[in-house]
């Protein structure tokens, strides 16, 4: 018995392909009451900016059918506090990789964050967030404008000293095109999808539910859309892809791996079920074992076509 769940991802060893998604697991230490975060393949941190950010005014979340909108606005402690206060815990998780999600207002921010985070001990992978729909400045434009995408990825790739993963926005006509641009500009890996731009209004008060008016849709509602994008991108690039969007359980995670993702991130599911990730890891193991698949690597991309 025993299925090998480990995988190589952009040269990094993952003991299993399940990571906590950025913005849904704090800085790794908030959910220790529920399970040992050291069980995870990795943890993607809340998006870090150079300076701390208070985020958007409330109301910040709205429930939708099989999903939720969030307009957190990249509320984070800022780079220095992150390194000083949050990295020690993340570093203490030996074989659970630390993925630092980061965000800038301009290319210079992104470059500086890449440079400085590359030097922080324990940072295994950088996840460049160019796709947050909840902040007014530059961020989102990098994710939807081809020229800006090329420029920011090239600039950061030039100074990275740990692998650089670019997190793609799903709010585009042709995500495969964006993926190729990021790959050609030097990205070591891709992650997708970030949230879809959406809105909720309240007929009782005749007003927007979110103070920010728009928010990002996540959760099972988006799974079919995310799966299609991950499928298409995996067929178009040679760098590894981390898939996400609406994954609730082992079967969902296995679907993303089946279409070619080498690992998955799990976000909203943790809100609904705090132990979703450890249960998912266990469920994947059982499923693969029952099917006689010896290693998760054999499952990845094995969709019949």
């Amino acid at each position: 018995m025993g299925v090998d769940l480990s995988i190589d991802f952009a040269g990094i060893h993952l003991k299993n392909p399940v990571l906590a998604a950025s913005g849904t697991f704090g800085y790794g230490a908030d959910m220790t009451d529920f399970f040992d975060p050291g069980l995870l393949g990795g943890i993607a941190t809340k998006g870090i900016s150079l300076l701390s950010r208070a985020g958007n005014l409330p109301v910040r979340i709205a429930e939708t059918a099989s999903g939720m909108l969030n307009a957190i606005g990249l509320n984070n402690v800022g780079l220095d506090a992150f390194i000083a206060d949050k990295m020690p815990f993340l570093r203490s998780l030996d074989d659970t990789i630390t993925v630092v999600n980061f965000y800038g207002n301009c290319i210079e921010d992104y470059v500086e964050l890449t440079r400085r985070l590359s030097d922080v001990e324990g940072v295994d992978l950088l996840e460049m967030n160019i796709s947050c729909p909840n902040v007014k400045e530059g961020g989102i434009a990098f994710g939807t404008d081809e020229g800006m995408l090329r420029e920011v990825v090239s600039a950061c790739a030039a100074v990275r000293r740990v692998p650089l993963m670019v997190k793609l926005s799903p709010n585009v006509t042709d995500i495969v095109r964006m993926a190729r641009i990021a790959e050609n500009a030097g990205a070591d890996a891709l992650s997708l999808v970030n949230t879809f731009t959406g809105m909720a209004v309240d007929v009782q008060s005749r007003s927007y539910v979110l103070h920010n008016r728009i928010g990002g849709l996540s959760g099972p509602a988006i799974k079919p859309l995310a799966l299609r994008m991950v499928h298409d991108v995996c067929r178009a690039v040679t760098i590894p892809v981390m898939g996400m969007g609406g994954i609730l359980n082992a079967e969902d995670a296995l679907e993303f791996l089946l279409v070619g993702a080498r690992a998955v991130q799990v976000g909203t599911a943790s809100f609904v079920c705090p132990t979703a990730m450890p249960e998912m890891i266990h469920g994947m193991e059982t499923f693969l074992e029952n099917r006689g698949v010896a290693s998760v690597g054999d499952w990845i991309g094995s969709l019949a076509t």
Partner: protein
Amino acid sequence: MMQSTKTTLLRREDRGGSYFLLAMDNPFRTAIRPGQFVMLSPSECGDPFLKRPYSVFRVLPPSGPNGKGELHLLIKKVGKGSAQAAELPPGTEMDIVGPLGRPFEIRKDLKTAVFVAGGVGVAPFIWLAAAKELRSVRRIALIGGRKAEDIQGVVDLEALDVEVRTATEDGSLGKTGRVTVLLEEILQDAPEGLELFSCGPEPMMKAVGRIAEKAGIPCQLSLEARMACGFGVCLGCVVKARDGSYVRVCKEGPVFPSTKLAEYGGNAGEED
């Protein structure tokens, strides 16, 4: 220590109007402090998608060697989730996360505790009133609501020897008017070692905070917010602190000293 677990519905008690009480197994190993809450999934399927936060109304100790004890919630039917909860048959298994949040703080020198509640906001005060530390403290509950059926928890509080005064806007029970009128009356007596504890609609709590600060009386407010997780990771439930930062209602709260909050008490929110 928070737990994500399951509980079984034992019974449902109608409390008049759109209010009901759910009694379920207390599945938690950690003692629940007054002011803490749980996230409850009222349905076994994925609709509604998110759990709902509910204050702990009462905890009954385990009876018998294998008893688990009971957890009681007082719920007002306002939407999809609470409407579903109102229909659950006893025996239903529900997902639950708890105990969550920062409880009420009970000062050593507290002499008179005044609970100022609006509508279903009375929920946390039953468990607070029952706290060991409050046994020798004078406890007064001021409960307001639109009409008589909105005045909940009176018998439960009186059973704990709490002095209960009520006010309704339509005059159908107790004083006619808002609960703050009752509060102003209490403050005229200016009892010693006084502290306010308030929970209810936002405008009410803002008014209570203002009154407390004007009178120089400490006041703890139990806030509501839309929550996705309930345990601090989504940053969805924040409220503005007086220092300009955002604090999480589910983690730094739901109970805050009024002086910590930007829009409660002080000069803020005079629009009410």
